[in-house]
């Protein structure tokens, strides 16, 4: 039903968002994009125009940038699978109804609330090669040969950071998934139970299909959030050991800290475009799935 009235109201409703956006997002975006075509140290009044040179260097002459992208991709893959499965599992259990409901829901949201500083310090302590708890536990249960300096060992460093990121991040997924689960009417489950479906079948035939839009939201947010990981890596390893945990944002930050603003912003633009394409692909896939 499209009458004249909804049109005007529609525009009015959208207006505040558009105004804010134009002022506070568009302008900085344009300026930042502009910076990527210059060589500038951020302080001097003169900026040297160099056209696409930054972009060329990044695309063809900077293997470290792409290694950083790969590292971020690995962590993201782990987050999409392990982190979200755990979040889903816990959300489903809570949704079904258990005792001490509120307690668990609060506890699972504590990791996201904790400041990055605490998370960094505590997990560094857990992983510490000298007096870390992880090594202590491994020795205790007889697996002493697996003890190592988790964050300093190039083989285990990236994975160790991924674990911390997932620990801190699953709370978000949990909350969104739970909110989604709770909009599914109880009656559907009840009638399925009457029809003889057990917990598993109920999940596969009722929960999963209805939750598809929520899965989609969670997965897009996971990808975007994880690819942009910064605080944890910066505070735990600074991108070390020897670049094993370097991720795009720490790499960009390094260039910013060394006053290469043009190069850094060009990297940010390329990074953004890659994420943008990933998201578009996801949106297209989800639209196709919706139609089935």
């Amino acid at each position, binding site marked *: 039903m499209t009458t004249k009235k909804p049109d005007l109201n529609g525009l009015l409703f959208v207006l505040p968002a558009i105004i804010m956006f134009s002022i506070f997002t568009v302008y900085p975006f344009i300026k930042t994009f502009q910076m990527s075509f210059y060589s500038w*140290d951020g*302080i*001097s009044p003169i900026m040297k125009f160099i056209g696409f040179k930054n972009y060329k260097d990044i695309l063809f002459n900077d293997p470290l940038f792409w290694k950083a992208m790969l590292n971020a991709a690995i962590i993201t893959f782990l987050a999409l699978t392990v982190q979200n499965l755990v979040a889903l599992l816990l959300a489903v259990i809570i949704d079904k109804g258990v005792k001490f409901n509120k307690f668990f829901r609060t506890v699972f949201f504590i990791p996201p609330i904790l400041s990055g500083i605490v998370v960094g310090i505590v997990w*560094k302590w857990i992983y*510490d090669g000298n*007096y870390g708890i992880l090594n202590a536990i491994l020795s205790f249960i007889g697996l002493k040969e697996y003890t190592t300096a988790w964050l300093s060992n190039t083989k285990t460093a990236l994975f160790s950071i991924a674990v911390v990121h997932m620990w801190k991040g699953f709370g978000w997924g949990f909350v969104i998934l739970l909110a989604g689960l709770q909009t599914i009417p109880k009656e559907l489950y009840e009638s399925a139970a009457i029809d003889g479906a057990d917990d598993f079948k109920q999940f596969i035939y009722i929960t999963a299909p209805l939750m598809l839009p929520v899965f989609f939201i969670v997965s897009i947010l996971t990808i975007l959030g994880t690819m942009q990981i910064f605080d944890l890596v910066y505070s735990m390893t*600074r991108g*070390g*050991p*020897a670049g094993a945990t370097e991720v795009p944002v720490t790499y960009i930050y390094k260039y910013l800290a060394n006053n290469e603003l043009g190069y850094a912003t060009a990297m940010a633009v390329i990074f953004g475009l890659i994420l943008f394409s990933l998201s578009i692909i996801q949106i297209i896939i989800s639209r196709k799935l919706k139609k089935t």
Partner: protein
Amino acid sequence: MKKFFTIFCFLIFLFSCSPKKVEKGVVIWHWMTDREEVFNKLAEKYYKKTGIKVKFETYAPSDVYREKVRAAAQGKLLPDIYSPLGDLRELASFIKAGYIEDLTPYMEEGWKNLFFDNILRQNYYDKDNQWAVKEGYYGVPIDVVSIQIFYNKNLFEKAGLDPNNPPTTFEEFIEACRKLKTAGIQPFVSGFAEEWLVNVFCQSFEWQVLGEEGIIKTIKGEIKYTDPRWIKIFKLFEKMSNEKIFAEGVITMLNKDAERVFATEKAAMALNGSWGINVYKGMNPNLKYGVFLPPKLKDARYPVKIWGSSSFLNVNALSQYKKEAIDFLKWLTEEEQQILLTKETHNIPSNKNVINYIEDENLKNFASNIDKIFPTLPILEHWKVVSLKCRGLQSIILNQKTAEEVASELQKLKDEILKEQSL
């Protein structure tokens, strides 16, 4: 509920629209959280003496401080006194953009005689410096920091080493590490996740092998990183790594973490700065330790030199209170104030006449070695090369690359950069 909310928010908006107060007096931005109390005390003292208000504002940690300074520079909202907290190249940018006052006339009046020359010159530009900055002094040092090797006297005794005779040569140093390892003690720790610290350790050998001449020639491209002298330096790290002297996880330790390891006696030696005295006091007041210079190499052509710097404060050239700011800095570097600072914060004073007032034994040791601080060079190596060098050293420590590999990678990058610079 909604009504209450709207009224509440309206009140808050009113609240937020408070008129901006213009500060009268000198505003100083700094990053030294451990000195905040003393600074405020001094500001009050100065106010009582002269009636001029001085306000210290702390922003920490240092990377946050740098962001703030940079953003403020953009908006021309820098305070009266601050520091870009960067190297000579960054300071040069600020100077050329007009944000830093040239202090040469004041220094030449006699102010410069208060300071150690090699320290003061760290914010000084030569006539033909590579950034085309006007020759002169641009910063005021308010303390001195330098880096040496701390050692735990108790742990040394345990390993059968003489606690009053720390190693002086590289051979003695390795021998000491071996003894410590036999006694089940981790020999050496430092915050090697921080590239600059790796660089500092390397530099203490660079200066011995190449001297100022050799280092400058390398930066200019006349000596390659594949030169046997450089390979010799990198091989030192190979040796140290093979002898397993480094504490577990050293490559991802921030200096803070390394300080903790030393303070809790989990390592016998630590490469750290004079600020460590204050830190260790806080973490473990019962720690018995001493300091010694980086070890001498057998066939070193040049004497041992150590890294040293200062917390410099610069004056904003656009400030309305320039004169007051400079007067305050002059006062801050006078004997009385420097004595107070040293007593309360355990940092080496920048005023050389105050050295005798230092009580702490180890601080005295640091102070006595100020002459060994290597001078700032007129040209700096490109940051990418330094970064790759440090990464390479980290790889050597991890036993992942050899000295030769690191040297050739480094030279490759250097060649590229030299080519770019000549365009």
